[in-house]
């Protein structure tokens, strides 16, 4: 089973995204033998009111819930976000949350971010952070969204040991606390590797907390598959990474 933790629907503000409807995404998944995928709304990232993007996502995937697992984009610096979070849990059946401090103008260690993490923990939802949603060097002329600092994310994970975290689209894991302090940090972070580094993640974190994600349809799926192809590991280990770890985390 291949379960992709890193997929999207909707539009991104800085460039055209193709195959961004549910049927089109499923076609890409079929082509690449991806069985299920976690999806979030790309449009929600830059909507002032993210919730409208979550509602669009709910409608878009209504007929495809067997393969598309929704995560909500929540901005804890925006009005009434807890109402939105509960709506997404109760009406949409989300299995996790995606947070974008770099686009929503708050810091990973700011009080509002910690409130979001706390709220997700109370609802048994993992919280996702993205090292980057796109390469900083190709930033839109009007948007300044530098990469998140992995050590800040590691700090946040250490302060909320009861909450699970998913770290996607990051680079430089090897020099971060996630790897250098892997033995002492709580075992509550799950890290995706489509931008590389799967070997060092498996060595440092153990196979159970490494998860497969492609970034479709924003990115080509190929690089994540090549990472798996180059990983020297047994088929059993690869099956864990390809899908079992994520299925267990999300209890689906």
């Amino acid at each position: 089973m291949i379960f992709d933790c890193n997929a999207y629907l909707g539009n991104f503000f800085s460039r055209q995204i193709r195959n961004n409807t549910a049927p089109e995404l499923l076609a890409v998944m079929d082509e690449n033998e991806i069985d299920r995928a976690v999806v979030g709304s790309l449009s929600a990232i830059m909507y002032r009111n993210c919730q409208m993007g979550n509602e669009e996502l709910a409608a878009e995937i209504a007929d495809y819930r067997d393969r598309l697992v929704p995560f909500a984009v929540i901005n804890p610096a925006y009005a009434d976000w807890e109402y939105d979070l509960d709506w997404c849990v109760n009406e949409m059946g989300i299995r996790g949350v995606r947070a974008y401090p770099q686009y929503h103008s708050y810091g990973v260690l700011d009080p509002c971010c910690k409130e979001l993490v706390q709220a997700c923990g109370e609802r048994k939802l993992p919280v996702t952070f993205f090292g980057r949603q796109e390469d900083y060097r190709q930033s839109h002329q009007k948007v300044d969204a530098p990469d998140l600092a992995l050590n800040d994310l590691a700090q946040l994970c250490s302060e909320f040991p009861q909450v699970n975290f998913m770290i996607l689209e990051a680079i430089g894991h090897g020099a971060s606390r996630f790897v250098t302090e892997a033995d002492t940090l709580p075992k509550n972070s799950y890290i995706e590797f489509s931008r590389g580094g799967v070997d060092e993640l498996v060595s440092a974190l153990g196979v159970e907390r490494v998860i497969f994600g492609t970034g479709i349809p924003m990115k080509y799926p190929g690089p994540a598959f090549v990472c798996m192809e180059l990983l020297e590991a047994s088929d059993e280990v690869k099956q864990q990474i390809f899908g079992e770890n994520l299925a267990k985390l999300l209890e689906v």
Partner: protein
Amino acid sequence: MLIDVHAHCRSPQEDAEDPWAEERALIARMDATGIDVAVVSNLSTPRPATIEGFRKCNREMLAALREFRGRFWGYAYVNPGYAEEAVAEIDYCLDADSDCIGVKLYHEYLICDPAVRPVLAHCVELGIPILQHAGYGHVNRAVEPHISDGSHITAASWDFPEAKIIAGHIGGGGDWEWAIKAMRSASPVSGADISGSVTDEGLVEYAIRMMGADRLYFATDNQTHTGVGKFRSAMMSDEDREKIASKNFLRLIGREG
């Protein structure tokens, strides 16, 4: 055949058990993913490179060609600011090894800077390709003030219409749509390689649409997963895939046969 037109070797680590361990690892990744040849340059010197610096890099590059005969071809790296020495160095490297087939330029000068003209003119005379480190970012532009972008490559190609310039890594960070559009009207023998850490869906297809498949080259810049992954995933005809995989480059260096 799959040729990686943009790769790097490093200085051999003489105190290590295997001085060529990194290169051997690269070749293992090439084997695993079906890459037959990587065209390497060695940039292991502080930049801007001194004459001694680029000479040392090239001696080590030539040693890598000998060590991994048939798997590596080479580019001679020069700082075009030292025009006379750079031209002599290119001749030295091409004479020293027939698998040294081109020139690598980094960011010491914009490729359209008058200082680069002697090197470009010499490469045209020899009929060899020039791989130019390139990128166009909207941010952090002060980090590499002399990095060439698509517009500089196009300008140089108009000055030297026969120059076989390859823009390095259109996915190497920066606005790849801008870069591709800026190179659309460059001379037909100039092109770009698809390497770089950016694996945005549509990048290769847009390059084919705007520049034409005849002007594109497969490459990894030593990031096997991003180079191979995007090339495998990109939608294109079988004919275009063969061109980008190796046919275009073999034609460029006169090794079609």
